[in-house]
């Protein structure tokens, strides 16, 4: 028997919400990045689930997910580089202090 679609979606929503909470509540840039990863993976779950559910004979959902993973990796690399650069300059990665782009 298969697990019904709604279960996947509920768990993905939960994961997304956890990620979102992490992004919004954390002050540490790395933690925010981790939250973002959770949100991306929640989306990946959705993609695979819908792919499996709508077009079971093709693997479009999975392939889309692989792309997202690849891009997420690139994004993580860039983001970490930025964070390191910021840290070198400010000796802190607390986003509350990074407000030099305000008015």
């Amino acid at each position: 028997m298969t697990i019904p679609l709604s279960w996947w979606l509920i768990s993905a929503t939960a994961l997304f919400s956890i990620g979102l909470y992490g992004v919004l509540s954390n002050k540490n840039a790395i933690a925010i990045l981790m939250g973002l990863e959770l949100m991306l993976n929640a989306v990946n779950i959705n993609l695979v689930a819908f792919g499996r559910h709508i077009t079971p004979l093709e693997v479009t959902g999975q392939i889309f997910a692989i792309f997202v993973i690849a891009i997420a990796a690139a994004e993580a690399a860039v983001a970490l580089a930025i964070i390191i650069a910021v840290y070198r300059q400010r000796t802190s990665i607390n986003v509350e202090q990074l407000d030099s782009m305000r008015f």
Partner: protein
Amino acid sequence: MEKLLLLTPLIPIFPLLAFVIIIFGANKNNKLSAWLAIGGIGLSTLTSWLVIAGTIMGGHHVQAEGWRLPIPWMPTGEIVFNMGVGVDGFTAAMLFMVPLVCLLIFIYASEYMEGDPRYARFFAYVSLFAFGMLTLVIADNLLLLFMAWEVMGLCSYLLIGFWFEKTSAKRAGLKAFLTTRIGDVLLFAGMLILYSYTRTLTFHELFKPETLEMLSGTMMWGIPVSALISLLVFGGAVGKSAQFPLHVWLPDAMEGPTPVSALIHAATMVSAGVYLVARMLPLFAIVPDGALRWVAIIGAITAFFGATIGIAQNDIKRVLAYSTISQLGYMMIALGLGGFLAGVFHLLTHAFFKALLFLGSGSIIHAVEHGAHHVNDHHTDPQDMMNMGGLYGRMKRTAWAYFFGTAALIGIFPLAGFWSKDEILAEAWLQWQEAGFMSLPFWAWLAGTLGAFLTALYMGRQIGLVFFGKPRTEAAAHAQEPGNRMTIPLLVLAFFAATLGFINVPFIKGGWLHHFAGEVHAASHALHLEAIPFQVSVAVVSSIVALGGFFLGWAMYRNLKAGQQDPLEKMLGPVFTVLKNKYYVDELYTAIFIKPTVKLATLCAKFDYDWVINPIVNTVGRIGVVSAIISAKFDEIVIDGLGVLGTARFFKWTGKELRLTQSGQVSNYLLTIALSSLTLVGMYLFFIRM
């Protein structure tokens, strides 16, 4: 010989060049300007002589039929208008007189005008004047003639008003211009009608028998077109040649410098009118008892009327001016009676002796002015003959030249005026014998003979007053003969005044000029072109009349004392007053034409300024101002305030408020994004899915 004739177009070019060079280059240098003008007219004179030689060598063919150089002007499609130059015997005769007299006058003027602040300008103007007259003479069509005619009109205005600081001179210039303008308009109207019927203005085409027949056969307003055109053309000549009733400008033209008077009265201006009538004579003659009759009538009136005024004038130049008017009347009589050559002959001789008399009077005025300076007298009018007297002893050269001019004018045998005036009177006499007593030729003869008497009388009076007796003022007592540049032209002119008559003495082959210039209009049968035999009776009568008049005048005035009453005034009483006031013609014109015109102009001005036009204009102006103010306010408040500045202010304000949302806190932004997305999704679900 044809090659010599090809020089014709050059004749007027030289004075024109002189004019242009003086105006644009040489006007700072007086001496150079005078030499340029003299050189220009001198070259014209030489060229003219070559052309005359060509005409003489060309024989009958050139003299009667003419040589022409047509120049197509503004060819438009089929219509080609030829504006060329032409030479025939008549033109050649004029070419002998015009440049030569002009040259002598220019030389004279180079001394006479010395010390004038506008010396160079004077020579520019007279050069242009000579250019006008020379062009007029060589024109082979009416249009070119008319242009030259107008150039002369302009020059007469400029030169008569040359001393424009004097109000009287300014007015005289204006008067000459406006009076001749009346004639010009008539002439122009005549030209237009002529062109509309014939499609040509070239003389030799106009005078083809079939064209003339067509013109006299066609009616316009109940009269033959030819008569209408002739009268209009004659109107032009009346204005230009100062015939009654448009003579009023000529005496006032004396306000100009004396050489100008000589130029206007002898070589140019007034000759132009006579030249025009003579040139157009076949057209005049085509209708029997038509236009020619009027020419003769006006001429006779003018000849007599001008002479009567002449006896009562005290201004030495005005006497001569009225004499000119009268002599032009003689020419018109001759032309009006069909005596083409008699008129032309008198035109030529008159030019020489009248130029002589004018230059002589100029030299007298110059001398008296000099005398007045010498005795520090600035009130004596140097032109008033009553201020002269006894000048013979002080200026012998001028006096003798003047005597010759006078003798020629009054027609003493064998001087020029004797032959030319006599031919006119003989013409009238012969026609009178045919037409009978009280006919037009009789009246013409009578007017001419009485005019001759009066001419002799006023010249006798003038000579008596100017040269004889005792000086009546200190100025006259210290008068001094002017220099050679003034006296030599006088002597040259005196030579011609004495001898020019011989070119048409009836005893020699019936008059040489007759063969040379008289056959120009041979095609026209209505004219009296055959030479007139010498009329002993006419000659005797006019000689007696002339000598009698002269001695009468001379005897009466020779010993006039200063302050003494004019003997003629004593004799004639109120008649003299009328004559002295020129029959009140000026006053009449003032009352009839000038005052109403001024009144009308005043009314128009009132209409303009006070009543209608100005109030309307002002109201419109005020409306404009008010609406502009309103519009400006609208701009300030609505466009600027609300539109341009308002928009700017709005965005400035919103920007100022909204920038507070930019906290720089990443979490704030993320929260905003999350909430906004949630809201959007919520709205989607709420609105679309429902």
